[in-house]
């Protein structure tokens, strides 16, 4: 709650708003001890006419932006604060694996008949999403002729980008050798393939205002789910079932998103994506058509995702190196970039940036 309060306070100050000007709240609770909507509204002395709370794993940040846009367009509120907070690190949740203390609790979803949302099945000894990322990566390597060591560049690049970000938790650059020396957690995922879970909070304010400090939301799309994909794979890569419909593949995040945003895919100056595990970056780039299926990991070997690269990805370091804020850190970074306030990691003339997670719930932001 303390972190959430600080995040809201900082966001209000940044936006030049008074708390009385916030009339809507969307709360995104984390797995661990977190600020819930009642506590948050009462503690901060807010008076809102629109409040909701969405337990959204780490995937749903884009969906919550869409939720806010819907509420604004329906007139439910004029200015909505989306608030995320987490004490996942200090409360030692079950996702933590392989280092330090054993997890204090196992994730409840891992006990469903169906398994967890990221495929966790505690009784199989696959209690953390890292196991599912490893299954997806193994399948990817098999299908497309890559190998685990190819992921080194993603870890090295993420850490390089974070080294330029004073807000990042992990700013020390690493080399390919450092990566290769890091231990397997769930092979083929090494320690440096995994983000660390973090304490933290974020607040994003959306409204109908325009001003010098605002950025534009050009378009958003919804989270995609289907029987022939699992959380950490795009179509054809994995999944519990054989494809439900003959020859069916989950549609690539389609061109409609870019059309609605009024931009071409090639206009995107930087990509931000959910990277709890390194493998998720090429999978996401492929999903949005920045690369053909199976080409993403190879294409990144050139250093393309680094600040200054061909198509920078997660210039703030991502979940991997800045910290696991479920992706809200990327929204803060996109705003900084579009305002031209990103310092040493500034993308020159950044005009259009995309939150492009593997799950399809994308948001395209443009410079005001």
């Amino acid at each position: 709650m303390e972190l959430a309060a600080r995040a809201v306070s900082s966001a209000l100050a940044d936006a030049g708003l008074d708390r009385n000007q916030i009339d809507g709240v969307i709360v995104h609770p984390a797995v661990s001890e977190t600020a819930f909507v009642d506590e948050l509204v009462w503690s901060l002395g807010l008076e809102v006419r629109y409040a909701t709370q969405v337990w959204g794993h780490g995937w749903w940040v884009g969906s919550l932006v869409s939720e806010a846009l819907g509420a604004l367009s329906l007139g439910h509120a004029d200015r909505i604060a989306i608030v995320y907070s987490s004490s996942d690190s200090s409360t030692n949740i079950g996702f933590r694996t392989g280092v330090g203390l054993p997890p204090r609790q196992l994730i409840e979803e891992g006990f469903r008949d169906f398994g967890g949302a990221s495929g966790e099945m505690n009784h199989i000894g696959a209690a953390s999403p890292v196991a599912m990322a490893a299954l997806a990566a193994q399948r990817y390597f098999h299908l497309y002729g890559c190998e685990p060591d190819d992921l080194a560049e993603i870890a090295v690049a993420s850490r390089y980008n974070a080294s330029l970000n004073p807000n990042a938790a992990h700013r020390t650059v690493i080399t390919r050798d450092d990566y290769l020396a890091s231990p397997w957690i769930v092979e083929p995922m090494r320690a440096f393939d995994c983000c660390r879970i973090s304490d933290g909070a974020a607040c994003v304010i959306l409204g109908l205002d325009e001003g010098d400090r605002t950025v534009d939301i050009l378009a958003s799309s919804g989270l995609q789910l289907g029987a022939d994909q699992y959380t950490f794979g795009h179509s054809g890569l994995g999944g519990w079932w054989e494809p439900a419909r003959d020859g069916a593949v989950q549609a690539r995040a389609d061109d409609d998103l870019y059309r609605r945003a009024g931009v071409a895919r090639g206009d995107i100056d930087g990509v931000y994506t959910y990277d709890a595990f390194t493998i998720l970056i090429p999978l996401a780039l492929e999903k949005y058509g920045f690369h053909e299926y199976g080409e993403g990991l190879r294409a990144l070997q050139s250093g393309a995702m680094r600040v200054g690269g061909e198509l920078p990805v997660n210039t703030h370091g991502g979940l991997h190196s800045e910290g696991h804020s479920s992706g809200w850190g990327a929204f803060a970074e996109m705003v900084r970039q579009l305002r031209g306030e990103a310092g040493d990691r500034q993308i020159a003339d950044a005009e259009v940036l995309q939150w492009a997670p593997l799950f399809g719930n994308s948001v395209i932001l443009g410079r005001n």
Partner: protein
Amino acid sequence: MRIGKEFDDLTAASRMVSEPPPPRVTHLSLPHWEAAAKGELALQRCGACDRFRFPISPVCPFCGGLESTWQAVSGLGRVWTFAVVRRPMMPAFWLEPPYVVALVALDEGPRYLANVVGERALDDVRIGTRVEVSFHDEGDGLTMPRFVIVDES
């Protein structure tokens, strides 16, 4: 083996620190675990479209049918994808790391998440490896289906 067992102990969270986490047994999944105790891998088969499915679900993902029966499958399949857990992922588990977690594409169609065990597991598991179910008594009425590598027939 009965429904809701894991809730009996209100200190379940602390218990898990020292014991492997058992599968949750619900009214839906009970037949799966009862069959395992008899040495059978049983899956739901849709009463409308006849297809097997997994994970366990009250509805057929292919046709929406709500009626299903439990039927034993051959227990043969191929590794669809796999991973090797090398660091402990939970405080206690039946298998010591390193152990194999695999998504096994059963001959009947569904993919089943399970451990691949046995002397050959760590050295020989690959995508496409032929595997067969084996059953492991973990006490307290629980039998865990796992898979072992078998030669191509």
